[in-house]
């Protein structure tokens, strides 16, 4: 195998892996704080992609500029889903954490509703948005590196760093971490837990708003696009360590690089099997994930 091709495969894998990690950040945060596996994660990304697409198609707003709309919009959607759909379930639960199974079923219902509403509202046609920014590809030897992907990759790393800092140093961030550690103790300390949950869900969704705008420039948009990302995000989060922000990025990079390199030797169909094999192997050796606290 040509070393140039392999090194380029490595670059590709890092780029797409970082993007997987960035998309998975919200899922990890929500699970870490609320113990709710958000099955509708991919659907929210799909909504963000459509929001970016329609903003360009109807108002002529460049997908990169649409971040100022999609991030607050998705924050609102996430906030609402938590406070209207999931909060009643949590209120009913007297145990320390929500029964993960019932919350999973609930968010699975949300996923089905959102995906099918999108199919009804937007139709089955595949759409695409494009940026008007003239982005000359970065040349790596004779092979170009796509700038849109590089931007999304950088945003993923930046988002993870900022989110970690924010959780560590601000009052609200500390309240979120306190709630994650012990819900009842947080209540006793005067933290408004339902509000914290809604804000956490909102932030998780807002991150998808960001990536919706960034990915819209290079991903074909269909009502089903969320599923591919949703399942991958779940694998990335479990691999990296559930609830760990850096773990999400590391998990994404591992999956991305592994798939990109494996794809050079076997067909994509088998590469998917290999990466799921790797997933099982890591869970057997390190059940808490790569960066998770045991």
């Amino acid at each position, binding site marked *: 195998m040509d070393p140039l091709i392999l090194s380029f*495969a490595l670059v590709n894998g890092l780029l797409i892996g970082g993007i997987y990690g960035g998309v998975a950040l919200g899922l990890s945060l929500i699970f870490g704080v609320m113990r709710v596996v958000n099955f509708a994660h991919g659907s929210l990304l799909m909504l963000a992609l459509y929001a970016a697409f329609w903003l360009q198609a109807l108002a002529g707003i460049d997908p990169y500029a649409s971040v100022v709309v999609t991030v607050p919009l998705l924050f609102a959607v996430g906030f609402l889903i938590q406070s209207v759909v999931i909060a009643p379930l949590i209120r009913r639960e007297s145990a320390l954490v929500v029964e993960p199974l019932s919350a999973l079923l609930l968010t699975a219902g949300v996923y089905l509703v959102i995906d099918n509403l999108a*199919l009804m509202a937007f139709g*089955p046609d595949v759409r695409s948005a*494009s940026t008007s920014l003239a982005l000359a590809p970065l040349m790596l030897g004779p092979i170009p590196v*796509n700038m849109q992907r590089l931007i999304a990759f950088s945003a993923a790393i930046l988002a993870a760093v900022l989110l970690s800092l924010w959780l560590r140093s601000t009052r609200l961030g500390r309240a979120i971490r306190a709630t994650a550690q012990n819900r009842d103790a947080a209540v006793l300390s005067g933290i408004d837990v339902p509000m914290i949950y809604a804000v956490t869900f909102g932030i998780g969704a807002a991150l998808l708003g960001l990536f919706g705008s960034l990915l819209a420039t290079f991903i*074909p948009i269909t009502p089903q696009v969320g599923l591919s990302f949703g399942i991958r995000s779940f694998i990335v989060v479990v691999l990296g360590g559930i609830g760990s922000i850096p773990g999400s990025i590391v998990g994404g990079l591992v999956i991305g690089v592994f798939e990109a390199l494996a794809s*050079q030797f076997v067909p*994509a*169909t088998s590469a998917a099997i290999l990466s799921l094999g790797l997933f099982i192997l890591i869970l057997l050796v390190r059940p808490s994930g790569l960066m998770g606290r045991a």
Partner: protein
Amino acid sequence: MTTSFSRRVALRGALALSAAAFATTAQVQAQSQTEISVGWVLPLSGGSAAIGQQARTGVQIAVDQINAAGGIKALNGAKLKLVFADSQSKPDIGVSETERLIQRENVAVMSGAFNSAVTFPATEVAERYKTPWIVMGAVKDEITERNFKYVFRINNKATYDAREQLDAIDLLKKETGQGPKTLAMFYEGSDWGRSHAANVRKLAKERGYTLVLDEAAPPNQVDFSAQLLKIRAAKPDALIAAFYTPDHLLLSRQMLEQQLNLPYGVHSVGGGTEDPSFYKAISPKAVAYYFVQEDRQVDALQGERLPEFADVEAKFKAQLGYDMSAYGAQGFAVMYVIKDALERARSAERQVLRDAVAATDITAGPALYAGYQRIKFDEQGQNTFAHGAISQNLNGQRRTVWPAESRSPDTKPAWPVPAFGARS
């Protein structure tokens, strides 16, 4: 439980009795029925949903026309009633929906299902229940190679598609004295793509081409960087691709982004590249010089539109917002083949209808709208007069380059195709 069971047994006995008693009048009853149900299994959601909607629109337009013109005349003007089912582009759903349409909705004839992976098992169900099935869109060879009695296909099978692609390459090679020596194949990994790849593999070997890459990908991918890199490393002269719309869009966009040049171009076997919604979503730059194996000669229909279809195409465009597609035309044509068979059968009974479909020999009329000169099935149910055309995307338009006699005088194929850097 017990009561309902015994009631069911009693009911069944009563039905058997009445069936025996009225056996002689059954024929009369069938003739005087006012509605004939036609079942359609189509991918109305999932990866092929756009195509399913196009087919459904074509079908609906045809049925509205037939019913408005007085229905099935041989059956006292009986109207056609459509029963659509959504396969979600998934084989298991397609099979259970087929069972439902045949058993519960009691349809006289079935059609669909575009995706080969759905059509292949679903037609098996139809064969089991002795219900005729007119295949729409699916090209997997084996669908009409199983000695089935109830399965018919109007359109090409995969072998024809592969042969036409290589015929076009051979033709251009003969005309210009230059052409590819090595080919790469990149295709979706379900029934359609694999069936096509197997045919290309065989034909390419027979005709002396070297296959330097043979790669399948699972559907609904989000990134093809790794595969494009493989194509780049294999350095093929031309690429043969088979993908449905979303994946084809991703592939074409990424090839443009990566400036991946192939001296003798990309030869797509349709799927995504025949879907009008694909062209709405992609930059013309990304599909310039593409060769597409078309089920229906697109430019011929643009040049001299038949007046009786102007209305059909206007309605189609009004409903979906883009011009008639090959799949809309195929759905339309299937309904006229069914109408023709019903008129000759003078019955909506499945077995009688099956014999009428088998005896189909149409040489004129709206049933040929999908672009063939004749529809006549061989003993396996395959229309041997099916054929497609190969177009090349020149200045944003798909112009037929093969067969040579269908090429218009102002169409000059670009061969070899210009590199990305050299395009204006």
